[in-house]
């Protein structure tokens, strides 16, 4: 009977009876798939570099502490103080809260710059990756740029200098119209580093849990085996 039930369900869900879900990535048919790798320490460090250079003037990381970042990303004390924190009044146990406040942000850009600590968990890693790559020139927008993933986004295209400019073709595709300081591949890799870093910031413990989880599971595998043998002995009595 159970087999019949499973068969019935499979036929029901496998047929394209139900309409597909709407795209998460705005006017794009689907997001560019990207799964962050938080175990590549150098990538996380590079991602932090991209973040500090291109994101941190507006976006805070309000749930991440400097010293947690230092410990997890293996950053020397002097570099943390002199090149990252900069302000001597900020302690290393403080949260990574940066310059642009909500009032200024709303006045200058029309919206507050959201905190990015949990952004990859809110939107998903693929979404963030796709979003970063989908800016284009749009003269109708106040700041001259728009984004395919989030139409009417208030965020200016701060990545144009490294990516180069993109425009929207008549068919709705993005076409590159000028070169940036990075090649396409380098830019792609930088954005991957950045998403990796953001995924780390969203959940600093992820590196540990993905590394050590296997031991917990192994423990229970052994536990199950021992208990199975024990139970086999007991159940002989009642055969």
């Amino acid at each position: 009977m159970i087999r019949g039930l499973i068969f019935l369900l499979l036929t029901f869900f496998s047929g394209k009876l139900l309409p597909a879900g709407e795209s998460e990535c705005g006017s794009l048919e689907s997001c560019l798939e990207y799964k962050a790798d938080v175990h590549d320490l150098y990538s996380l460090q590079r991602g932090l570099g991209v973040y500090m250079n291109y994101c941190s003037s507006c976006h805070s990381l309000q749930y991440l502490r400097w010293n947690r970042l230092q410990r997890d990303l293996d950053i020397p004390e002097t570099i943390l103080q002199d090149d990252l924190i900069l302000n001597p009044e900020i302690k290393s146990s403080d949260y990574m809260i940066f310059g642009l406040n909500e009032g200024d942000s709303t006045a200058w850009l029309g919206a507050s710059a959201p905190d990015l600590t949990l952004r990859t968990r809110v939107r998903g890693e693929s979404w963030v990756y796709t979003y970063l790559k989908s800016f284009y020139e749009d003269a109708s927008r106040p700041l001259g740029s728009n984004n395919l993933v989030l139409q009417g986004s208030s965020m200016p295209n701060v990545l144009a200098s490294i990516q180069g400019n993109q425009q929207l073709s008549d068919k709705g595709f993005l076409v590159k119209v000028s070169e940036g300081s990075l090649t396409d591949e380098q830019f792609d890799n930088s954005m991957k580093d950045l998403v990796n870093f953001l995924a780390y910031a969203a959940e600093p413990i992820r590196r540990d849990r993905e590394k050590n989880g296997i031991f917990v599971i192994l423990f229970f595998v052994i536990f199950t085996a021992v208990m199975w043998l024990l139970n086999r002995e007991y159940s002989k009595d009642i055969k």
Partner: protein
Amino acid sequence: MGEQNKSFMNWIDKRFPVTENLERHLTKHPVPKKVNFFYIFGALLMVIFMVQVITGIWLMMFYTNTEEGAFASVEYIMRDVEYGWLMRYMHSTGASAFFFLMYFHMFRGLLYGSYQKPKELVWLFGCFLLFLLMAEGFLGYVLPWGQMSYWAANVILSLFGAIPVIGPDLQVWIQGDYVLSGATLSRFFALHVVVVPLLMIALVVFHIFALHEVGAGNPEGVDIEKHRDENGMPLDGAPFHPYKTFSALPAIGIFFVIFFAIVFFAPEGGGYFLEKPNFEEADFLKTPEHIAPVWYYAPFYSILRAITFGIPFLGITSKFLGFIIFAASIAILFVVPWLDRSKVQSIRYKGIYSKIGMILFAASFITLGYLGTKPVNELRTLIAQISTLFYFLPLLLMPIYTKYEKTLEVPDRL
């Protein structure tokens, strides 16, 4: 040493009946020798209940139950509290596991007639536990104070507001404010950590006492009490301890392998255990694009949404009718013992209509669950309406088909 122990136990037993109860509920309590895998879910439910209580206590030590502090305190637990992340993931995964096990446990009950005379009260206490678990899950879901916490709670609370005449006042009374706010959060916290868990513990005790009074069932629906050996132990039975306790341990091990695989490698459960919008703090000015319940409420939420029509001449809006049908979908489970008129307990010996009924019931429950997590459109609403019908029909028609269908002869022994 042995003598000393004996006199010590005698001293205790004269004042508090430890030995008597151990024998009654563990070492001399007979349970059927042969059962199938469906019979493990009760033990696993006890385990997960303990996991929830213990992790819950630790979360409570660091959680802040205010509108301003709730969301940040969860991130504090995730980042600054030693192993706080583990407690939190175990608790959130535990909630999903709890429902998963509960649904299988109840489905087992339906399949093998674990509600039939004289087990009506075991089933009733169990149904109350499902109801309490749903309340507990809902209350707990609000506590992280994320976007989905806030807006899903709004949807559910507005259902009370849809009740004619008393609705709006009732909603304000439950919320403790004119809108869902910090006042609601702190009372939900109190209910989640004290009131509902206490009631659940009481009902678990009732559930097990009632079960031990009437005896555990088996997939054959055979009454094992009929044939006993010279010591009074049923021939097809064995003492609960050590035989059942040790047979449960490997199953508990396997359960924890799966449980911790999720906790460590996929705590978000693909967005079904921890929903994406809930990583954003509640904002009462910004409604999420698509409000979806967690998967375990999805079947019932689907029923709620499937009712797109009211009864205008009675002054019943579609929302209120939806609420009634939604409540009925849970309430109907309570009366199942009195709907089933079959002479046999187990689906194995019941007739073809019972078998078709069970398949339809399970299939519609899963379909409703699937639809409940998706945004609505016309086709989906239609399928949800049909599924709602097939959720109720097998139960409503039960008194007829179980009475007249042809059943097979139940064997005498297991």
